[in-house]
């Protein structure tokens, strides 16, 4: 049987490699890559030192350590989702302003006697 540690290190390596590959291919950039590299680091850390969770659970008075993991993971995902929607909203605003501006600039061009685009 493969040890628990080996399994989680393998998962961590796959995640990290995938993210680095995506960044390298210009598919994932900026603050997005930072978040996911962070995720990969955490996975590696948890894989390398599994008893971190147990210690943290004792510290926070959680009797069943995996619960702590799930709660923290779930909270992190929720925060990430809200952050994504905030960003989408920002982008939507920019796109709408751009669409409006294109229409205004086209009208200006026409005013100046340019042919239709």
């Amino acid at each position, binding site marked *: 049987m493969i040890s628990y540690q080996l399994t989680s290190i393998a998962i961590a390596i796959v995640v990290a490699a995938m993210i680095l590959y995506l960044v390298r291919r210009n598919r994932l950039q900026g603050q997005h890559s930072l978040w996911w590299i962070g995720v990969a680091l955490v996975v590696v850390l948890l894989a390398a030192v599994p008893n971190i969770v147990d210690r943290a659970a004792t510290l926070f008075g959680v009797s069943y350590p995996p619960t702590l993991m799930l709660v923290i993971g779930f909270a992190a995902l929720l925060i990430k989702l809200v952050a994504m929607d905030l960003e989408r909203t920002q982008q939507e605003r920019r796109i709408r302003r751009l*669409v409006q501006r294109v*229409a*205004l600039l086209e009208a200006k061009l026409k005013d100046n006697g340019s042919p239709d685009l």
Partner: protein
Amino acid sequence: MSPDWVVIPAQNEAATIADVVAAVVQTGAKVVVVDDFSSDDTATLATAAGAIVLSLCSPLGAWGATQTGLRYVHAKGAQKVICMDADGQHPVSAISTLFLAQVQTGSDLVIGSDPSRGSWQRKLAWAWLRMLSGESLRDLTSGFRCCGPKALEHLVSADISLLNYQDMGVLLSLKRAGLTITEVPVEMGPRGEGASRIFASWWRVGLYLMETTALTLAMRRMR
């Protein structure tokens, strides 16, 4: 007394746009038609009827289109502007009524309202939103409006480009900025062609109501 500028958002209104534009041009106003990504001849017909046409390259909805027109007239130095629908339900003769009311009352926004119009669903929706917002406006969804200088200045800002509908969000945003709104009764005709974009299906009404409810609660003034 008549306004210099009239903004008309239009999406697939080929059936009525030419008549509406021609009638408004007759009054001496400059007409700006914002073509919200129509798939018919709206833009061509509006141009032929004497309007300045701004064409959006992606649909922005009634409010996004209206705001484009407001940005245009604002850049042209307009102080006051009338907004009206392209479907012919807003009587051209009432433009001067609205404009006059704006001048006389000094309100930042004057709404031409006809609370008698609409189905019972619409009235129910209005009653609900009126209760939530604590505002006493009678016709919340009317797109027949006259903006004064302060309202125009406020309405062109990027902060309100994200609104999906032209009614509650716009009104509450103006109220929150401390601007004044007055309603003037206007008898509206039946829609020339086509139905309301919002009050068209239960699904869209539901979406509209939920979104507007959330917006209204979020924008409600603290007291």
